[in-house]
């Protein structure tokens, strides 16, 4: 909450500073007066941007940029959402199916907020996601576009920050059976043993839709 307020105030101050700088006929001022005004704006901007960066507190659009800034343990846990057909078979879902959500935003939300929702709300969301995944599956089966990542720029569209494989690019690899359910797992594995050839992954079922009979 404090971060929200500070961030809003910082950005508002930045914009107001700019408006003040270009207002009141700046061309009519002496050079030293204009430089002084610009300097005040610069000091403010440096304060906000270095404040966010050095204190490592994002006050977007003043950003702390903590890129890969962690020490990664050997055992990692990552989320996985799979679709389920009427026979109970599980399928990975192409990341483009979640458009306009991206895979990373969806899994971030599932990890953080979804599990705090009441069960009936969770099921409503799951129903929506199943419908979305199945609609993308049908499109992929027909060889049509999944999501609209390239709707304006085609292959030149900006990628997502994290890349994801287009597993349904080949329509023969797309599940033929309609999706009727969804499961959300947390998968853990050891990076070192995996690198040595083991494929052992510990799966923990976090949520399933529809619920187990």
């Amino acid at each position: 909450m404090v971060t929200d307020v500070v961030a809003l105030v910082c950005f508002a101050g930045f914009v107001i500073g700019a408006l003040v700088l270009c207002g009141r006929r700046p061309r009519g001022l002496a050079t030293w007066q204009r430089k002084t005004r610009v300097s005040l704006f610069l000091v403010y901007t440096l304060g906000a941007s270095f404040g966010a960066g050095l204190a490592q507190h994002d006050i977007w659009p003043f950003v702390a940029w903590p890129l890969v800034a962690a020490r990664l343990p050997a055992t990692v846990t990552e989320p996985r959402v799979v679709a389920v057909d009427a026979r109970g078979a599980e399928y990975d879902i192409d990341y483009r199916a979640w458009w306009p959500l991206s895979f990373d935003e969806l899994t971030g939300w599932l990890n953080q907020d979804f599990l705090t929702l009441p069960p009936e709300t969770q099921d409503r969301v799951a129903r929506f996601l199943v419908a979305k995944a199945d609609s993308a599956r049908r499109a992929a089966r027909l060889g049509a576009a999944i999501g609209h990542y390239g709707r304006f720029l085609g292959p030149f569209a900006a990628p997502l920050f994290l890349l994801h494989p287009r597993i349904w690019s080949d329509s023969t690899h797309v599940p033929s059976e309609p999706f009727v359910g969804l499961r959300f797992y947390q998968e853990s594995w050891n990076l070192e043993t995996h690198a040595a050839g083991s494929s052992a992954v510990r799966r923990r079922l976090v949520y399933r839709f529809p619920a187990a009979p």
Partner: protein
Amino acid sequence: MRLHRHIIWEWWDRFWFAPGSARNLAAARIVIAVHALWIVLSRDYAGIAGLPADLWSGVTMLDRVRYAIVPGHPMMERALTVVAVVALLAVALGIATRVSCLVAALLLYHLAPFETILWTTSPYERGLEISTLALVVLSIAPCADVWSVPARYGKQRDESWEYNWPLLLIQLFVAQVYLFSGWSKLFRVGWSWVSAENLRHWLLLFNQEDQIAVFRGAGTWLAGHPALCLLVAIGSLTLDLTFIVVLVWKRARKIYVPLAVAFHIGILFSMNIAFLNLPQLFVFLDWDWLTERLRGNRPARIPETAGVSR
């Protein structure tokens, strides 16, 4: 004390208010606008506004106020996206930049958070943070004196301090990405971040996670060479922490900017991470020098600044 103040002001004046090139500032305007258009046209902020209310349940009222977001109105967001695109086109063409830059900045500030707002209010790494700040700066700068529709038939502009400080500030926003990225590693982890094991684990994660791994060869190979991993870890932290020298030592740009490009391409293929701000490194190019070269003239600029912007 008075002497110190004088020295600081002199340095400040020399750094920010040295004569700068109208072309380099105009090029920064075009780079920022085209890059922002690239991101905006590749996303669907309005579509996120139209997602079911259940998905918005974690977004607090304060979060919504902060970005002036009212979920459930995709048509309105679609209209705002169209206005943002028009404003960014106007910025790229140098039309009414006072207004177009500010409108574009405010709309990017409003639209960009849609991408992540469901779970975080900080849409960093999504490509629009530097554009939002830079467009505010451009709105108060004479950034359309050349290379713009209104200035098409205008005369060549002399260098002026008014072209220099806005460009330097935008360059600083880009350089801060590296500085803070390096600082964050020391702040959050400490010097132990620089270890072969840590980098190896990051490489293995991004190459073993089948939901991410598009490219596997380079990362897996690198992870198999601990000495190289250590070297890359040292090299990346050094690049991060020292990139900012390009602001004061212009000649260093000839080394640092290509190095940064190679660094991001390496990360793309070894870690499957696309650094969306990469094209913004073009703000460091000396467009005066480049223009003269393309015209077949020998650049008149002194060798010390050749190939870099002022």
